[in-house]
């Protein structure tokens, strides 16, 4: 190979391809789990924050503290705290034994960090979506005789989901990009594998170039899927 030439075979050759694909599988798994879990945690935190009952005040404060604390601290600190801190406690290791049999400890730590970091953003999105639906909607639904549960599920929720879908799409993309940092604790994700190939072949342009294209493709696909879903829901609930 000539000096300075770009050798794409390190990416498309059988070895490189296998490494990158195995990394991509880890990245996609992490993204999927993190999106689902942080949506759930974020929704719970958001509902705690918008609660109005005076008895629930401590819950409201806790939810606010959680959101602000998690949002204003870098993801790398979440990652290190889970990996070097929480997952070094013996009782945590004992409790999480079954999960760690399926996935590595680092993978689980990375997932936990993604969930604590991103759920605080999710909580803010859900909260602002909920608060932007006029209260009259809930009251009107109740006055037509719907129960509280039905009014929330059939009147409020569809409107909230429709409002928060676009920012939710952005969150999915952000989560995908955040997963790239788990290489710091040694989870063999896409960027980790790219770095490994780079450090043995020195073909940084081909390797990182290809990895960037893969990431862009994943992120743009996520955006397109979310748009498609938003369009579907809009048509379905428009009538």
């Amino acid at each position: 190979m000539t000096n300075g030439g770009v050798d794409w075979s390190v990416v498309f050759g059988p070895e490189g391809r296998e490494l990158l694909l195995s990394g991509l599988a880890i990245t996609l798994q992490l993204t999927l789990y993190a999106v689902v879990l942080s949506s759930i945690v974020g929704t719970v935190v958001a509902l705690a924050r918008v609660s109005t009952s005076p008895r629930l005040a401590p819950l409201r404060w806790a939810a606010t503290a959680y959101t602000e604390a998690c949002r204003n601290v870098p993801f790398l600190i979440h990652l290190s705290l889970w990996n070097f801190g929480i997952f070094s406690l013996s009782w945590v290791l004992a409790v999480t034994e079954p999960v760690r049999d399926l996935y590595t400890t680092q993978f689980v730590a990375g997932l936990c960090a993604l969930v604590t970091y991103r759920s605080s953003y999710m909580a803010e999105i859900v909260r602002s979506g909920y608060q932007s639906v006029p209260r009259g909607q809930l009251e009107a639904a109740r006055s037509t005789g719907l129960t509280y549960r039905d009014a929330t599920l059939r009147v409020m929720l569809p409107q909230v989901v429709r409002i928060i879908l676009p920012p939710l799409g952005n969150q999915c993309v952000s989560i995908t990009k955040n997963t790239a940092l788990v290489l710091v604790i040694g989870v063999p994700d896409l960027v980790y594998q790219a770095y490994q190939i780079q450090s043995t072949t020195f073909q940084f342009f081909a390797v990182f170039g290809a990895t960037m294209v893969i990431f862009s493709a994943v992120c743009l696909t996520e955006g397109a899927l979310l748009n498609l879903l938003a369009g579907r829901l809009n048509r379905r609930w428009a009538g």
Partner: protein
Amino acid sequence: MSAVWNNLGYMLGGLRFTLSIALVAILGSLVLGTLMAVARMSHRPWLHYPAVLLIEAARSVPLVLFIFFTYFMIAAQGYDVSAFWSCSLALTIYISAYVAEIVRGGIIGIDAGQSEAARATGLSNAATLRHVVLPQAVRRMMPALVSQMIVLIKDTSVATIIGIPEFFTRVLEANARTLAYPFQLLLFAAAVYFVICYGLSLLSRRLELKAS
């Protein structure tokens, strides 16, 4: 607390790098981001399409990868650029893409009649943008810009992967040296970032209240 206390000077010394990178990237991305936004809104295809490509590409690629790429790319060209500057450059371009979208949103939000009126009084396109549209847009963009800057300050911690001795790198080093106190050291680091970032967000909320 002794672990934190013994390493306090060393760790806080790293803030010098953290804040320098942040400052370079903030100033750089405000300028570059505005230029990219204007280019994207231009009707000239040779300005519009490259800007769209750059903005969308930077927004769908992880920062780590971008920092790695810039770092190795500069080194391979034979330039002698320190890790500090290559990281600052990568972060500047990366954040510019987000700033560009904020600026574009701000400009679109200004009523078209404003620029039409300015153009009708004889101002050039550039003068209209500078004296009429941007001053109005800036006030609307402030909250989004500040939260982007908070993201940027948090993102400077990624500089640790190319070995810049900034705050977080030094915390990790202190952690590796002592090994026994991960919670003390990392929670201390979390507190430092929290004070900076939350302080900024409180400040921006205050400014918003004053402005309105």
